[in-house]
């Protein structure tokens, strides 16, 4: 493949010891325990890393810690991994908490993302409403993927689509967060949405 000069890095004369790759990112959203970190770990070339983000911004506004029993303070873990596409292009995958109260950090992470994958556990559909709303509101390309825990999906996809009230143009798929190929294919669905949108924008 022809090496295309990165449009996002100026020609630096900086004496950096190594030219960094162009970083791009996808966001993986969904409720607690839905499989975000599992999905990141299934496809990342490094063991998923965790960072705690944007804590000071949220500390004042959060009063509901009932979802995190045993914790007296709010820490927001963000797991992420990466895939080196080629020496000049690196894809980062960020898993973000899906609950409403963590909405504060999404802008921080999602800004500049190519797209998002919302992971759904059909036993707890309501956990992903906030993420779906967010991506729709921000007009970010996204797809919804039902995580088939142990190969089981408790509702058919039409029911899930109805329950989540997602538009027909939002792809809805079933995947297994534990399997590399399955996660890869789910992310490709997101990227197809992103590509179609970019092509439409360019055509207009």
């Amino acid at each position: 493949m022809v090496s295309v000069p990165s449009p996002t890095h100026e020609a630096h004369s900086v004496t950096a010891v190594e030219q960094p790759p162009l970083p791009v990112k996808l966001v993986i959203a969904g409720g607690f325990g839905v499989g975000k970190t599992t999905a990141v770990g299934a496809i990342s070339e490094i063991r998923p890393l965790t960072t705690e983000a944007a804590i000071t911004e949220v500390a004042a506004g959060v009063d509901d810690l009932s979802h995190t029993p045993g914790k007296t303070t709010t820490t927001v873990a963000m797991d992420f991994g990466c895939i080196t596409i080629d020496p000049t292009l690196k894809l980062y995958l960020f898993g973000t908490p899906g609950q409403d109260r963590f909405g504060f950090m999404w802008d921080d992470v999602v800004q500049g993302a190519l797209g998002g994958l919302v992971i759904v556990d059909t036993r707890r559909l309501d956990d992903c409403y906030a993420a779906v709303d967010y991506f729709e509101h921000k007009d970010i390309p996204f797809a919804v993927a039902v995580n088939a825990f142990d190969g089981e999906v408790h509702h058919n996809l039409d029911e899930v689509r109805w329950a989540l009230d997602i538009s027909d143009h939002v792809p809805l798929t079933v995947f297994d967060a534990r399997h590399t190929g399955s996660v890869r294919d789910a992310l490709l669905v997101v990227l197809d949405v992103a590509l179609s949108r970019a092509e439409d924008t360019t055509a207009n």
Partner: protein
Amino acid sequence: MTAGEPGPNEDGGPPCAWGSPRSSGAESGGGAESLGDGGTRGSSEPAGRAPAIRPFLLTAGRVAGGGTGPPLPVETQVVATSSGLSGLDSLAFEQHDLVAACRHPQSVAELAARLHLHLNVVRVLAQDLCTAGHLAVHVPNARTTQDISVLRRVIDGLRAVPDSRGTLRDSG
């Protein structure tokens, strides 16, 4: 572009977007306190200093994106300059660790995770070190999300990922 300057900033803000100086008291709430458990994670982390220092003491109370511009995106690439590496001995503590960790390009998020620092602390320190010429900070361009050639490269690269992977590496 001269050494130490970051890449273009889409939003027209200053290239190194510091948070405006704020009272460190504003940062010392429960959130900052909670970082104290950062040292209990995996055994692979560097032993040594206990995280006894409140995160924003390291930044003299400054926070990222505190009004003068957007914070650095989490995927922003940071890499040491040759002068940064040759001047490592003149740096101490977190500044030293940050530059030393950037022999190879790292994202802001990776740096935060590996050095067990708060994301926003890394943002502020990286920008300081960038201004001082020790680090080069490459702020990604927001237009990338609409770049068809980039999207196609990502899609092709992802398609090449096999159905199953071997053991994961511990670092990138």
